[in-house]
């Protein structure tokens, strides 16, 4: 779910944009910025829920050390969205608690 964003990019920064899909919603972002930055500017107030307490979490450090910004990107879970530049058509998903391996590969294992 997207809400009022905490950050915005002034129009004066105008440049080429890309569109990514975040939990089935299209999000437009300037090319070249990180997925984490794109999601914050789009109004993603949380990126995942924590593994133990299932509390909402969002980026803290933006430089690859805190691991709070983990999301699934193009089917690969637990990627550090602050280190991945946006690409047109990227599919990004929130993570609920621990990573879930694909059903297609583990069948009814869970």
């Amino acid at each position, binding site marked *: 779910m997207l809400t009022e964003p905490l*950050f915005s990019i002034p129009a004066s920064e105008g440049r080429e944009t890309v569109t990514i899909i975040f939990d089935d919603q299209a999000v437009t972002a300037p090319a070249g*910025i990180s997925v984490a930055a794109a999601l914050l500017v789009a109004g993603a107030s949380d990126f995942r829920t*924590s*593994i133990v307490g299932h*509390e*909402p979490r969002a980026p803290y450090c*933006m430089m690859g050390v*805190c*691991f709070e910004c983990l999301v699934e990107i193009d089917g690969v879970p637990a990627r550090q969205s602050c280190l991945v530049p946006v690409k047109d058509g990227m599919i990004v998903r929130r993570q609920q608690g621990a990573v879930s391996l694909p059903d297609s590969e583990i069948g009814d294992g869970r």
Partner: protein
Amino acid sequence: MNVETTDLAIIGAGPAGLAAACEARTLGLSVTVLDEQSAVGGQIYRNVVSAPRARSAILGPDYSAGAELVSAFASSGALHLDSAVVWNVATDGTIDYIREGRTRKLSGKYVLLASGAMERPFPIEGWTLPGVMGAGAAQILLKSAGALPREPVVLAGCGPLLYLLGWQYLRAGARIAALVDTTATSDYVRASRHLMGALRSWKELRKGLGLIAALRRSNIALYSGCSDLRAEGTCKVEALAFRQDGRSVRIPTSLLLVHQGVVPNTQLSWSVKAEHRWNKAQLCWEPVTDIWGRLGETALYVAGDSRSIVGAQASAVQGRLAALSIGNRLGVLPDITIRAAPYLESLKRYTAIRPFLDALYRPKDENRVPVSDKVVVCRCEEVTAGQIRRFVGLGCQGPNQTKAFGRCGMGPCQGRFCGLTVTETIARERQLEPADVGYYRIRPPIKPVLLGDFVE
């Protein structure tokens, strides 16, 4: 596996790494720089080449100065491997890293660890709520994306970066609801002893005073000597609560940016079992090196903020000195003294201000060792200060035992964000110095690695 070789492999493309690469290239050494980001510059000069002019103007001249180093690096002939995640370093100079979805090896005759600094954790109640971020993180958003807070923001804590960000926000027209400073009068008294020394870095000092003066002139609400900081909210931050002069203050906000200085990112040097000492002035660990940055009798050097917090300019100089020493060892620079002398001089000048800054912006005890048992220390595994103290009661002597007993430090951040807090909490509880308590045994992988990256 195919192993690439190089004279000097550098991990980190910030000021230390870039300057070392440039210097080593002038000596004719082959250089490969591995960096996790997609562009060089580190955090301090992040995006410096491609940032639009208006943004650079907001960020100020110290930021723009990085462009010179970045372009010197671009034409130096050093090989730059971007988006490269190093997961193992050996003392003989072998590096394992992931790039483009598979693990690779690089063997350096020498390796320079230049992984820089990270913001010191700020473990207070509510610091895990969405909307609480490091001030450094917000500055990265500004540098890399031009992003500014939409609503009035609260800045809290202490240290040059906090005031710099405030100043940059003012220039950009972003609204600041309050600057909540934890620096107390006693800090100024303590720091004044180091003022004479700091005057040798008078340019830096003047810049810093200028920032603070600009913030004071701006009519934003400034609170100083604040304590008992607490982020309030349920699903996201709603307010910062604190005490000042015996009264309680609560400032509603949707974005709380906290900061209390930066600390060396020492994962790499710990992972090779290098000796580290506790820096009592900076309250953090630093690897023990010779004056050139070499770690014992290994093929590894450390330069810049990952060795000890010295700032961007001194980091670059340390990078150059390490490169000279490596050139000397490889026989391309028989006499190191002449070339090193001016660098050693400027290093003294750049670092003269540090004792003053360290004393003035010494993070408060209560913001490093949580008073409340409820405060989350390990964000990944959600372990609280109270749990750590209980494990000490059960006989745990140090962070490796509390880790085994309660999983503190076992999450994806691999202890980066809880390590200092855990060491200091145990030290306080056992009434010892942090040096006597020790640190996590950091092991490879230095960063989490996708298992699929090992498979062809």
